[in-house]
């Protein structure tokens, strides 16, 4: 180090940086490439070692077998129903709440406490909540229901929604709302006609991240569903623990589970990043 001038160190670091990013990209991509390629192989080809790096023939047997012969399509529907219920309920409850917490004074620092209350839901481990949920659901007869699962998920989207939209609401100058109110707009009109359109990117980001985390959730679905409402992440277990794991079918199952969110990321990356970072960098 002492023999090289700062300029050389900089150039060296520059090259190391490029190499590092390239390597990281490869590491991030490889497992996904692997699963994707295994999913379009025959069962025999999928577990061959030395591996087939680039498949020469493509077959959709695995997808056909799990979607058409298996019940995988039902699991897709179950996941979708629970997730959509969660996102819609979460947004309908969470956005108005975040709006007044940011813009209104509740006295006694109550707005601050309310915000913290919603954010602190994030700290609750799912396993801790499943014990009372399971017992309460069993008593109510609401186990194995996509609707009830979605309603559970909704409450866990609240911290994300507060986290993701708070910065967006805060960014809008207060004078805008005040001007509307001076002009005779009611509080509700100001919220609905002035603020809501302006924080659309924040709402989008909150909706996307809520969708992703709910779609991927495992523990609640494992404990609170059986067969009727079983979701995709739980269903992928079906390929494991048997004597013969059909790797191509497991891969296809994983692809179906991760495909929607991967597409989501591609389309909405900008919103996810801005929502995520507004919450963290601001605080």
């Amino acid at each position: 180090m002492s023999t090289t001038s700062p300029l050389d160190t900089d150039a060296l670091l520059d090259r190391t940086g490029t190499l590092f990013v390239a390597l990281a990209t490869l590491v991030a991509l490889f497992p996904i490439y692997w699963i994707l390629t295994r999913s379009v192989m025959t069962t025999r080809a999928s577990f061959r070692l030395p591996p087939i790096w680039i498949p020469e023939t493509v077959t959709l047997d695995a997808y056909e077998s799990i979607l058409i012969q298996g019940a995988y399509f039902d699991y897709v529907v179950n996941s979708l129903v629970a997730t959509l219920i969660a996102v819609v309920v979460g947004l309908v409850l969470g956005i108005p709440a975040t709006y007044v917490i940011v813009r209104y004074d509740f006295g006694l620092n109550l707005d601050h406490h309310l915000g913290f209350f919603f954010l602190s839901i994030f700290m609750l481990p799912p396993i801790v909540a499943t014990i009372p949920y399971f017992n309460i659901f069993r008593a109510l007869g609401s186990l194995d229901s996509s609707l009830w699962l979605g309603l559970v998920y909704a409450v866990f989207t609240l911290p994300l929604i507060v986290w993701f939209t708070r910065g967006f609401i805060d960014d809008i100058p207060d004078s805008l709302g005040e001007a509307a109110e001076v002009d005779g707009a009611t509080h509700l009109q100001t919220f609905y006609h002035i603020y809501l359109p302006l924080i659309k990117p924040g709402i989008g980001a909150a909706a996307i991240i809520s969708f992703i985390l709910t779609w991927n959730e495992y523990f609640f679905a494992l404990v609170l569903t059986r067969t009727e409402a079983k979701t995709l992440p739980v269903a992928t277990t079906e390929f494991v623990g048997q004597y013969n794991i059909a790797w191509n079918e497991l891969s296809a199952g994983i692809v179906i589970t991760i495909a929607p969110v991967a597409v989501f990321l591609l389309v909405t990356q900008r919103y996810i990043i801005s929502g995520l970072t507004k919450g963290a960098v601001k605080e």
Partner: protein
Amino acid sequence: MATRTLPSLDGVTWQSVDRRTVFKYGMVLPAFLYAVAWIVYPMVFLLRLSLSEGVGGAFVGLENYVDVILSPSFHEAVVATLLFAVPSVGLELLFGTALAMAYNSVNRFERSVQTILLLPMVLSTFAVGLMFRWFFSSNLGIVNYLFGTIGLPEPVWLSDPQLAMVTVVAADVWQWTPFVFVLVYAGLQTIPESLIEAAKIDGATRLQRFRYIILPQLYPVLLVTALIRLIMAFKGGDKIFAMTGGGPGGSTKTLTMLIYENAFSFLNTASAAAMSFLFLVFIILVSNVFIAALSRVNEAR
């Protein structure tokens, strides 16, 4: 404060103050009550359960807590939780920050590179667990195949008590390094260019600039990121569930796994409830340490 939107105090009538109050509570109460119904009520249920023999059973005071605190399996689970969370989050912070620095300084990458770098963190943690379980399978996995090709030993990753945890940590680091990357990268964009330019003019090398200019500026972001990731690592269990199921020999049996086992396999619900509360207290304590550190850093500037 209640009058800030009105031109003068003359405009304030009881009615307008009322409307404001009705509006703000009307907006926040549905979400608040929903959260109370789904969080506070179940926690009361859980607390009562932890103080009784079982669901609907007799009150036994702190007996369950004493039993749990004295049981070796609980201690082992606490250790396993820390052995999973601390190295995972530590490595993620290290790699994520390095990646953000590299990505930020070398402005020659396509946007698609960023998308690829972010991909792991939006995938189902359980599916990622299954993927890595396959990769690290001793005779069918790609990792051992590659190790064999270059002449390295081929360990039984997931059946070895020490290596099983290494494997789970590897999967976690793969998935969550992108999360640190995004937040730190955003943090880097908020550092004033002039600060770095000034250091350059003063002759600071890149490493010096990182150590004395950039790193202190990143402190708050790093603290927030570390806190979020630690909470996620503590409370999550999907990946361990998918990869080892808590084995071999309980070496990856974190608190989540232990509570699950007690509540739903052994039907030892009251103990599981007591463990849950201790777990919750632990998470709250750790969070408070970080929040205190964060407010100290913020005050210092």
